[in-house]
């Protein structure tokens, strides 16, 4: 039925287009000078029909179902929900919905079957109502658009105005979604902090979130000090950056200034391939190649290396970040004007002196911006650490130890048994919130630096 509504809408828009074009042509052929070209009158009609009815259908889709559910719930026998929790109410409604969909389990009570029949009836009525409303709306809008067709009507400005608002809405949409995400995070986080004091979370040195969700579970007592978790992320990200920054920068400098065209034409595609490898594959690489190698190397040196070390996860993450840093640094170095290069060379500077003393300092804001973006990627990276890092939070900065990371904890907390009135599950949102604040801060800083750098050379 919704499909039918959309078909009616598009056909109506086409009809409105044709009607207005015909009408405008008639005026033009009658000798009156039109303000706007004929096509704009047609487009105006099509937009006037399309945009509001499209929004109407979308709203209908979003709102009809909850409304029907509510009507059905209200029509149930008095006192059905008395003394039941939200979970039990949801269960009853789910059963009614299953019955309405023809899936019958066991022998349902009669009042449930009645409710299911009512539900089916409401849905059918709603579908018919949607089609009827759409037909009425498009006829009214076509008529309205037809009446605007006179010689003086500014159809071009009219249709451009509608398009402009549409584009503005799309631009604002992303902002609204961001705000919605932040609200969802803040809401769940505040619930968490009403159960666990914020000071414990921020300064506590113990992270044992696996507390029982149901009474019959045996689990830890629970401790929500996030410091060791963030320390783990810090260790892994540091290892990653220690690997990625020198290699990435050297790569960029070499490719930009010293490499011959042939070397560049081979290395650049390889870097792009590296940038396109899914992080899950990096994870395999870490657990299947790097971690065993570190372990055997450690054993031959007499050092006890854990099987899921920060070093393995971090160094593989560093490899992932190499193309990221090198492409940013490459762009920044390429953006330094050729005239500066010539100026330094003409003074008798060698190529390396030119690079070190002139090009890198000139490109440093862009390079730093790229590194900061890499930092925020390292902190937020999930798959590699889920696969290669440990699960137990430890207060250590030894990269040969097993540590956990913020993203790993979020994943493990949200897998399996979850209950959104329990600090175990909610602590994932608090971690996510912290992560969001940190990466947001780093990104803002990075963008500021990059922008400042753009102002110099444009």
């Amino acid at each position, binding site marked *: 039925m919704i499909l039918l509504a959309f078909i009616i809408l598009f056909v109506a828009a086409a009809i409105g287009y044709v009607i207005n074009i015909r009408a405008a042509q008639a005026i033009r052929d009658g000798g009156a000078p039109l303000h706007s070209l004929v096509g704009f009158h047609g487009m105006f009609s099509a937009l006037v029909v399309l945009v509001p009815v499209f929004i109407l259908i979308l709203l209908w889709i979003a709102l009809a179902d909850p409304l029907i559910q509510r009507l059905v719930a209200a029509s149930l026998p008095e006192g059905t929900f008395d003394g039941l929790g939200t979970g039990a109410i949801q269960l009853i409604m789910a059963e009614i919905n299953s019955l309405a969909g023809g899936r019958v389990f066991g022998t349902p009570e009669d009042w449930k079957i009645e409710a299911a029949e009512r539900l089916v009836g409401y849905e059918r009525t709603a579908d018919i109502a949607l089609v009827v409303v759409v037909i009425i709306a498009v006829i009214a809008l076509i008529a309205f658009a037809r009446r605007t067709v006179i010689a003086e009507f500014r159809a071009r400005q009219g249709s451009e105005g509608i398009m402009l608002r549409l584009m503005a809405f799309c631009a604002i949409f992303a902002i609204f979604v961001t705000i919605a995400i932040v609200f969802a995070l803040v809401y769940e986080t505040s619930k968490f902090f009403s159960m666990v004091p914020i000071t414990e979370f921020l300064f506590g040195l113990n992270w044992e979130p696996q507390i029982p969700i149901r009474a019959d579970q045996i689990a830890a007592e629970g401790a929500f000090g996030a410091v060791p978790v963030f320390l783990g992320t810090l260790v892994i990200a540091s290892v990653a950056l220690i690997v990625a920054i020198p290699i990435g920068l050297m790569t960029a400098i070499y490719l930009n200034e010293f490499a011959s065209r042939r070397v560049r034409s081979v290395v650049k595609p390889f870097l792009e391939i590296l940038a396109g490898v899914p992080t899950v594959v990096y994870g395999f690489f870490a657990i299947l190649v790097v971690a065993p190698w570190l372990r055997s190397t450690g054993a031959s040196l007499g050092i006890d290396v854990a099987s899921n070390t920060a070093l393995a996860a971090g160094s593989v993450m560093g490899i992932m970040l190499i193309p990221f840093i090198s492409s940013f640094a490459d762009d920044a170095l390429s953006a330094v004007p050729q*005239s500066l290069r010539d*100026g330094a060379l003409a003074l*008798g500077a060698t190529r390396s002196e030119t690079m070190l003393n002139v090009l890198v300092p000139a490109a440093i804001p862009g390079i730093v911006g790229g590194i900061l973006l890499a930092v925020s990627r390292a902190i937020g990276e999930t798959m590699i650490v889920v696969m290669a890092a440990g699960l137990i939070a430890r207060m250590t900065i030894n990269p040969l130890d097993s540590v956990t990371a913020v993203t790993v904890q979020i994943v493990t907390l949200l897998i399996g048994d979850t209950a959104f009135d329990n600090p175990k599950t909610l602590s994932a949102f608090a971690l996510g919130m912290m992560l969001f604040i940190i990466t947001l801060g780093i990104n803002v800083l990075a963008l500021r630096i990059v922008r400042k750098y753009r102002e110099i050379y444009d």
Partner: protein
Amino acid sequence: MMDDLRRIERTAEMNDTKISAKGVQVFYGDTHAIKDVDVQIGDKTVTAFIGPSGCGKSTFLRCLNRMNDTIDICRVQGSITMDGQDIYDPRVDPVQLRAKVGMVFQKPNPFPKSIYDNVAYGPKIHGLAQTKADMDVIVEASLRRAAIWNEVKDRLDAPGTGLSGGQQQRLCIARAVATAPEVLLMDEPCSALDPIATAQIEELIDELRQQFSVVIVTHSMQQAARVSQKTAFFHLGNLVEFNDTDQIFTNPQDPRTESYITGRIG
């Protein structure tokens, strides 16, 4: 009157040859950009290269400090000697040659460093100053020589990129003269500047002639006439005519030169 004075100066100073080019050919890939150019550049003289766009005058200028070496596809043949020494000899390091043959570019290109560091950069990489005091002396002398000392002496720590276009170009000249070069190459040094800044630079070029041999590429024939003693006219990669500046402009020998200076080709 002015012309007479100039002629006296010229005859008085037409002394030694600083740079001598013989049979120079330049190729960019398959393009033959410079064809068999012979030219003698005198010491303590301003030599102007004129000619229509794409005639090869800048390319030839860049042969004189081996800046063409930085372009992969560029090949230079023939001989260019400076004080009798072949500058394309394998024993000559182009890096050290460029310290002796300074260059100023079309667009002012100060480094994004302070005014002081811009000037001190060349002396620093060539080890010309042992102490900070030595360096201060070199920087001040260079800025004075480029006639910009009085404008910047109170803000030597300010970034060089913050100066006006004309000041930036004089800073670049100061930077070039700071390495104590013997020859100064200028590739259209005034084409990005307004008339007032241009006049200042031209005045400066005339003063620089006291110490250096100056080679200037210019699009402006008036500028060539004003600042140079010798003029070389390039056309399609050939050196068409090379003579005293007043001869070129008053009594050109080649019909192509005459067409160019009267505005018929170019």
